[in-house]
């Protein structure tokens, strides 16, 4: 218990001191995860809407694959991206391994199936009737799809929140493809692993609390848009 309290004290000390190294780690974590969730959203909403509007029977096998990828272990995702970006790998010439770009790619790989899958489920829940109504009022199929997206926005925002929570918290993938290089690719989660390994438990818990506080701030922002999925 005393270690946890010391961790709490350490967290406040870290926040108050505005240590430049910590700030750099925090900003890198946010930059990577926000970039990843934006890209995952750009992939996931159109794909999820498309699948949601198609019948369940027609997309059954794709649904199963997407649901499986939603549970992809981060280390496996990291390993796959590592092998692709490695010097010996198909995209080795790009020299992206151990850069923030590699970390973003790995996180998109983790988050895109989540955004796609949950969007699909949300759209499928209401989509059919809305689409039919829109079409009966003379909307084009593109406009009808847009209407469905608008009406499913709570579910879609929930998908984005879930995806973001996944990437900001994961460590396995960013450790493998980022390499935890101090000042270059070290993020909150990999720093926590390192400090734990070094036996600096107070600092590790302190960093963990800072990460939770950051998550709370970002989630509060998203929640204010989504309002817990409730009515406007």
């Amino acid at each position: 218990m005393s270690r946890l309290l010391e961790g709490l004290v350490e967290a406040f000390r870290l926040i108050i001191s505005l240590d430049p190294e910590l700030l750099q780690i925090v900003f890198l974590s946010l930059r990577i995860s926000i970039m990843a969730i934006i890209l995952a959203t750009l992939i996931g909403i159109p794909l999820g809407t498309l699948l949601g509007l198609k019948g369940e029977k027609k997309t059954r096998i794709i649904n199963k694959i997407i649901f499986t990828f939603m549970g992809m272990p981060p280390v496996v995702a990291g390993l796959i991206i590592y092998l692709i970006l490695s010097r010996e790998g198909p995209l080795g010439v790009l020299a992206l391994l151990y850069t923030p770009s590699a970390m973003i790619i790995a996180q998109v790989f983790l988050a895109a199936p989540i955004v796609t899958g949950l969007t699909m489920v949300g759209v499928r829940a209401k989509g059919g009737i809305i689409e039919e109504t829109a079409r009966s009022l003379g909307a084009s199929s593109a406009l009808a799809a847009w209407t469905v997206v608008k009406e499913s926005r709570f579910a879609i925002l929930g998908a984005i929140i879930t995806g973001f929570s996944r990437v900001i918290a994961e460590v396995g993938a960013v450790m493998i493809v980022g390499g935890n290089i101090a000042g270059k690719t070290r993020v909150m989660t990999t720093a926590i692993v390192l400090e734990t390994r070094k036996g600096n438990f107070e600092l590790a818990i302190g960093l963990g609390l800072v990460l939770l506080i950051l998550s709370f701030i970002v989630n509060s922002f998203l929640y204010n848009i989504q309002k817990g999925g409730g009515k406007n």
Partner: protein
Amino acid sequence: MIGGCAVETIPVDEPGLVDDFIILATTTSTYDSGLLDFLNPIFTEETGLEVHVVSQGTGAALETGARGDADVLLVHDRASELQLVEDGAFVDRYDVMYNDFIIAGPEADPAGVTAVTSVVDALTLIYEAGETFISRGDDSGTHRMEQRLWESAGLNPHGQDWYNSIGQGMGETLNMATELLGYAIADRGTYVAMEENLDLVIALEGDPALFNQYGVMAVNPDQHPHVKYDYAVIYIQFLMSDKGQNLINSYQANGKTLFFPGYGLE
């Protein structure tokens, strides 16, 4: 002095078969090199004791042991070990084996390290050329040694763009050196065990400054009454016995001996 003579002071009794386990806190290098996967099953067959291995950097292993979360330690930071024995955290410490460090680097050797024989000269060349260097950065025995070597060269690489402190194990460090065409200081054991999968050569070896002594010691039962001190002693006896020392000497990876028994320093 040869450490072997100290072994005889441990009373050797017949352990018999025990159905229990001990926790060994050790460094990533003994584990990644495959040595423990070779030794521990033989120990278990002989005593019945299972060995649960927690592999960490030496700094973390020492901390784990000092907190009483392990029974026996196998680590390589001699100065810190002796200090902690002095402080009462550990007892029954022996110089159990040694190996050496090497500087691994890309075959092209852009810093020209192969031309020199001293580690200080080698690090100076890397520093001046600004060639990529991967550091463990995890407060492990290897990392501490690397820091001392930079110091003895009178150089401070921290904050240089080519100096990558990654806070990970030896294996990850060598993998990254392969990927980034960089240099790294590695223990020979891990390097040899991984050699096949690496695109690295030994750029420098044989400088006595690169000797690496391993110690084995038990967590002090006076400080942590719950530790399995008696079993820890059986494990230490096993490693320090003629059989244990011969086994350590016989262990090879890729046809090369990785660890040499006993005391390697003057």
